[in-house]
């Protein structure tokens, strides 16, 4: 393949790093949710709402930071809704997740038509070059000239791992998702932990949505999430509920995604149709290989009911 020089490679890799951010944010959030025993299929819908609200508040408030804060709030509210339905009322999680997805999908589109209507661009987040590090040849522009949300998403990987494995809260989360009866008898509030995880996880999903508008496209369009929420859920399985595994999956997918978009944009000599399906093919392969015997949170998907009478 002629015509691929180092500059193009840098662009592809830098874009890949940037595009990993929404997957990372959403998937790490979903990881906490699933670790506590609830799967939230509504991630896509929450991302859509986060994307719209982030965009809209940035548009009227003039600051991307305000937009990001708003996306966190809307994410938390949707997580709360999911928690009420699936934890307190013990609704079937798959169904309530699909409901949440459709709510986010419909509501974000409606609000966009009502309050914005036409494609409008905003001043989104600017890249922040990290002094010294960004001057490293090749790696510098790829890794250290990104916007704040990208840095945060990657920082969240070790932070999540630390929280999950080294803190008592993380232990509680893992216990609640694996054997809620045990946690309950020892005085851990199963419902409380699940509420917390759903809310935190949904805030991260909202943030992932905001990244797409405020940190990437600088505009809002219908279906801007393009299935990234669902892919994030798959990444949780791919990464086997571990932050580092999720990061690996997110990078694999985003790099393929970046490659395919560059193929189109730069007119690289590579079959365009093949490039478009590449990320999805990689995902399917990766999932097929990584499945086999997967250890997952044993109580995933099961509402908790204390004590049956004996």
């Amino acid at each position: 393949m002629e015509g691929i020089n180092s500059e193009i490679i840098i662009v592809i890799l830098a874009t890949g790093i940037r595009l990993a951010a929404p997957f990372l944010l959403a998937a790490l959030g979903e990881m906490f949710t699933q670790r506590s025993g609830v799967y939230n299929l509504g991630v896509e819908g929450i991302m859509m709402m986060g994307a719209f609200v982030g965009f809209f508040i940035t548009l009227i408030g003039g600051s991307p930071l305000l937009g990001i804060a708003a996306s966190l709030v809307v994410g938390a509210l949707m997580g709360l809704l999911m928690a009420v339905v699936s934890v307190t009322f013990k609704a079937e999680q798959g169904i309530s997740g699909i409901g949440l997805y459709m709510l986010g999908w419909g509501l974000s589109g409606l609000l966009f038509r009502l309050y914005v209507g036409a494609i409008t661009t905003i001043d989104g987040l600017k890249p922040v070059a990290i002094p010294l590090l960004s001057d490293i040849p090749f790696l510098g522009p790829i890794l250290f000239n990104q916007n704040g949300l990208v840095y945060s998403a990657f920082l969240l990987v070790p932070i999540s791992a630390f929280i999950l494995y080294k803190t008592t809260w993380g232990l509680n989360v893992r216990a609640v998702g694996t054997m809620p009866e045990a946690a309950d008898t020892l005085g851990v509030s199963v419902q409380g932990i699940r509420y917390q995880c759903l809310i935190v996880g949904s805030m991260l999903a909202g943030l992932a949505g905001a990244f797409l508008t405020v940190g990437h496209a600088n505009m809002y369009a219908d279906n801007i999430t393009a299935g990234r929420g669902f892919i994030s859920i798959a990444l949780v399985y791919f990464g086997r509920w571990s932050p580092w595994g999720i990061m690996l999956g997110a990078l694999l997918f985003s790099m393929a995604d970046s490659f395919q978009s560059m193929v189109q944009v730069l007119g690289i000599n590579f079959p365009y149709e093949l490039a478009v399906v590449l990320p999805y093919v990689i995902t399917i392969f990766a999932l097929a290989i990584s499945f086999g015997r997967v250890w997952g949170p044993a109580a995933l998907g099961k509402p908790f009911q204390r004590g049956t009478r004996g």
Partner: protein
Amino acid sequence: MKEPLISLQGIVKKFPGVLANDHVNMELYPGEIHAVLGENGSGKSTLMSILAGLYRPDLGKIMVSGVEQKFRSPRDAIFYGIGMVHQHFKLVEPFSVAENITLGEKDSFLLSKEKLKTKIHELGEKYGLKINPDAKIWQLSVGEKQRVEIVRMLYRGSKVLVLDEPTAVLTPQEAQELFNNLRRLASANCAVVLITHKLNEVQEIADRVTVLRQGKVAGVLEKNQITAQEMVRLMVGREVALNYERKPSSAGRVVLDLEKVTALNDLGIPSLRECSLRVREGEIFGLAGVSGNGQRELAEVIAGLRRIESGKVSLDSQEISHRSPREIIDLGVSYVPEDRLGMGLVPQLNTMENLILKNYHQPEYSGRWLLKPKVIQKHAEVLVDQYQVKLASLHQPVKSLSGGNLQKLLLAREISGAPKLMVVIYPARGLDIGATEAVHKLLLELKSRKTAILLISEDLDEILKLADRVGVIFNGQLNGEFPIEQTNLEEVGLLMMGSRSVEERIDDNEPACL
């Protein structure tokens, strides 16, 4: 007398349609081992769940060291020093011992391994409960898991330790060790509460017994008053035979013959390994073993429900290894599975339908197209009457029946087919004394009618009461067998844990001939 650590006063707990606890009083003193005895449904589990904070009583008081306290959740109970060791362990399998012990502690944000290990070590030294804090739960034996549960409660400062049927899953040796540990705890001024229905254990270890019957305290016995007869009288409300009259076996020809059968479990791992075993007509062969050593797979292989990888299963010298379940049924094999309501009976179907599940297709019960409802009803009426199954209506789904009545119904269906061989697995599990007695009598009667019976059980008492020959299954193989007269409990217990049989050991000790 000392002040009680805990005193339950007038506890009442209602569930829809049931008065589970009816003004129950109970006192627990430091340094005592207190057994709570009762049949299923007598309210002992409810009472203990109230003590552990899982349920709230409708009426009555819980006094802790003389002060009334309200328990809103298990956390409150733990706070007041009451620790419960459940029958089904509340342990997180993929976690380490240390993580399981610290779970739910609120003292720090970060997990502090070192401090925890020191404390686990100290507790282990003090009470003789040694445990490796880094081991993962799934790597531990059942006895060790139980020890983790106990250490966990001690770690939380429990002064009252409630154990629910703690020996149900233990080998006799493990049970002995547990009892030694419990004595040590009692001598350190803890109160130990033992919920059980095993009379010999109560006699062996308890200082006091509270017997519950139908939600009420039927009596409290002090150490010197504890006798098996008295406990049963209080539990059941009448005299019950503790031992059956055993007719000598008239064992004849070999009915069931397994030769080197290998079969996989549901996970695809071999769980029967070249297992050989024979059962003769007119005998009960009792197969003991810790559950999960291939018992279920063995029973399913015989019933034709599980494919065998190698080896041979014969019935009356006729190979049945790869026959379908129906062919095997028609040859006279009856299987009473452990899962009565699910595998044995269809919960949503009524009594009549369940009673003809195995022979609805025979001309007796169905014509060319249609079932013969009158014949079926008559058949059901006769069996229900003969086997004394208590039910409201023949038309009611069987899921509403009690465990004892379900088992009687299942046995009625199986025995009425006059089987040559009956495979019965854990027949008395979850049944109360009265129902157990009825089920055992049915098995003995069947034996006297020349049926070969393979009795698979984890309850050694049951095997010793019923069997003519005793075998031990370990790791998918028959690990020794004896005639009942030569069976000794200790030997069986050792074999259950995998030590090799006596003969083999003798073989090993013989000097080489060359």
